[in-house]
């Protein structure tokens, strides 16, 4: 099983190039704007999935509450956009003009103090990263220093997801409640609903995701990545090699939370609203399923997993809306039972055979097999 480390290093760069080509060239040429926007939405989940690869696939820390961080990132962005959409001119029919519409509906007469700083875009960007990061840090310290792990940790993250959902729905005067924050229009006067903005946001999302892949790859390639693998295997040994295991778990959990938050913020920008339905238990579990299907030990696998499962979700819920959840559950059970390393694991297992098949195809296409083509397949 040298595969994990070795495969990553050798095939990663080529893999990232292929991913970049698919995302930046193939999909934009193939799909209309509506579908491309959907892919952009799926990609925001890929951020969460990459975070889960770090935290769950490598660190062995299963979080069933990534929706919390996705949601917090998304809500931070939504608060900024909502404030911009609620200028006095466009809200003059309200009893208190200049505050978001849902506040007015809930008899609020002034903007709450914690909304004030979200007038600043710089603050919003910082808050989008730091609030989820800080929450994950605090949860991490509280849990990992006490050596809470495994199933217990997973349950606690579920509880936090449930609590945050209830909080958002219950405090609808401050949060928009169950409807979430809707009618987001412009960012510094730039209409995010226009066609050009949607294209631009899609490419921004891709660029950030690829940047995230490089960051994750750096972390996993460092000694810290090896330590995470070592911890998953023999936590006690790592501790008795002089490492504070909790510190590393806190780090990787916080990093995963920040990945999720960036995904959430990009979700808000591309989809144009944020609601509690992306925060709670079900979306959080779905995010784990994307990662498991793609391969929890593979950064790129998790991205393809997110794309594939979400594409299937859209496809099936368009055709058989009632069956989707059952299908998703079945998919998860099947993956865990038969392909514990997901698509990336299957690919790795059949790498040799795929290589031969590829060579045969290439040979059939050209009488003298092109050398670079073969080598490309191996490097």
């Amino acid at each position, binding site marked *: *099983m*040298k595969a*994990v*480390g070795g495969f990553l290093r050798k095939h990663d760069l080529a893999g990232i190039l292929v991913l970049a080509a698919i995302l930046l060239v193939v999909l934009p040429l193939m799909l209309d704007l509506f579908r491309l926007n959907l892919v952009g939405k799926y990609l925001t989940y890929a951020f969460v999935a990459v975070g889960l690869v770090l935290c769950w696939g490598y660190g062995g820390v299963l979080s069933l509450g990534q929706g919390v961080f996705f949601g917090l990132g998304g809500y931070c962005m939504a608060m900024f956009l909502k404030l911009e959409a609620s200028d006095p001119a466009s809200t003059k029919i309200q009893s208190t003009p200049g505050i978001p519409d849902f506040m007015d509906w809930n008899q609020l007469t002034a903007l709450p103090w914690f909304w004030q700083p979200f007038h600043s875009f710089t603050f919003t960007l910082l808050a989008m990263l730091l609030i989820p990061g800080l929450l994950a840090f605090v949860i991490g310290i509280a849990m990992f220093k006490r050596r809470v792990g495994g199933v217990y940790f997973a349950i606690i993250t579920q509880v936090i997801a449930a609590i945050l959902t209830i909080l958002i729905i219950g405090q609808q005067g401050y949060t928009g409640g169950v409807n979430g924050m809707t009618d987001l229009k412009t960012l510094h006067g730039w209409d995010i609903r226009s066609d050009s903005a949607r294209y631009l946001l899609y490419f921004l999302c891709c660029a950030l995701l690829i940047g995230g892949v490089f960051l994750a790859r750096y*972390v996993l390639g*460092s*000694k*810290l990545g*090896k*330590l995470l*693998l*070592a911890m998953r*295997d*023999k936590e*006690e*040994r*790592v*501790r*008795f*090699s*002089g*490492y*504070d*295991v909790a*510190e*590393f778990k806190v*780090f990787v959990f916080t990093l995963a939370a920040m990945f999720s938050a960036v995904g959430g913020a990009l979700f808000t920008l591309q989809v144009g609203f944020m609601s509690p339905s992306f925060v709670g238990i079900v979306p959080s579990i779905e995010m784990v399923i994307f990662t498991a299907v793609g391969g929890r030990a593979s950064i790129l696998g998790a991205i393809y997993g997110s794309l594939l499962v979400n594409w299937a979700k859209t496809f099936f819920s368009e055709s058989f809306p009632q069956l989707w959840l059952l299908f998703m559950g079945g998919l998860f059970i099947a993956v865990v039972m038969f392909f514990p390393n997901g698509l990336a694991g299957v690919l790795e297992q059949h790498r040799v055979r795929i290589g031969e098949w590829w060579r045969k195809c290439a040979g059939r296409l050209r009488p003298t097999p092109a050398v670079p083509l073969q080598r490309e397949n191996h490097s």
Partner: protein
Amino acid sequence: MNMTVQPISNQVVLHVEDLTVSFDGFKAVDKLNLYIDRNELRVIIGPNGAGKTTLLDLICGRTRATDGLIRFKGRELTKMPEHQIVRAGVGRKFQTPSIYENLTVFENLEISYPGGRSVFGALTFTRTRAVTDRVQQIAEQILLADRLQECAEFLSHGQKQRLEIGMLLMQEPELLMLDEPVAGMSVPERRQTAELLRQICKGRSVIVIEHDMEFVRSIAHKVTVMHQGKVLAEGPMDQVQADPHVIEVYLGH
């Protein structure tokens, strides 16, 4: 019967005094005193359930003492977290080989190198010449130099045991504790391990738990016999083997 052997003061590196641990009233280790000298190789023997492994667990912080003190080079260990005990210079090998099966032999040793132990340190850790040299040197010592790039899960049982000893040596501990290092090894492997132990106790103190009396005889400087959480006898091998109490509870007739 000599319950405590008074140490030669400036030589002692580890003091264990009145150490007690009680699990729901059962005293696994009971008012135990133990003194280990610098550069000493001490073997602890005793019947199953005598508290030998618990004693090592207490020293390395895996189990917390109910009472008593453990002083290592003047520092009190009973309240320190495990990783700091390790950093203070105590290394512990577990009974079953505890290595990272999904990493290579090289990486196993590299992770144990005392450097880059914080989060930031691990992120920025680079494989310097000093690290590779040290890995190479230890690998030669544990006879695994030709298998450095191999995945650790493909090693034999004896090789895994040696690899774990090597990982501990990477940490340069001043006190090394080994729990049944030759359990499950073949006779030639035992001989290799005995030779290795003789080498590594130069410049550090070593505590070994062992059942195999022949192996004990081949390595021990001094033997401590434990029974029901207490020290039953202590001294050179011949003296201990002739002790009637020891024969009764452990060695048999």
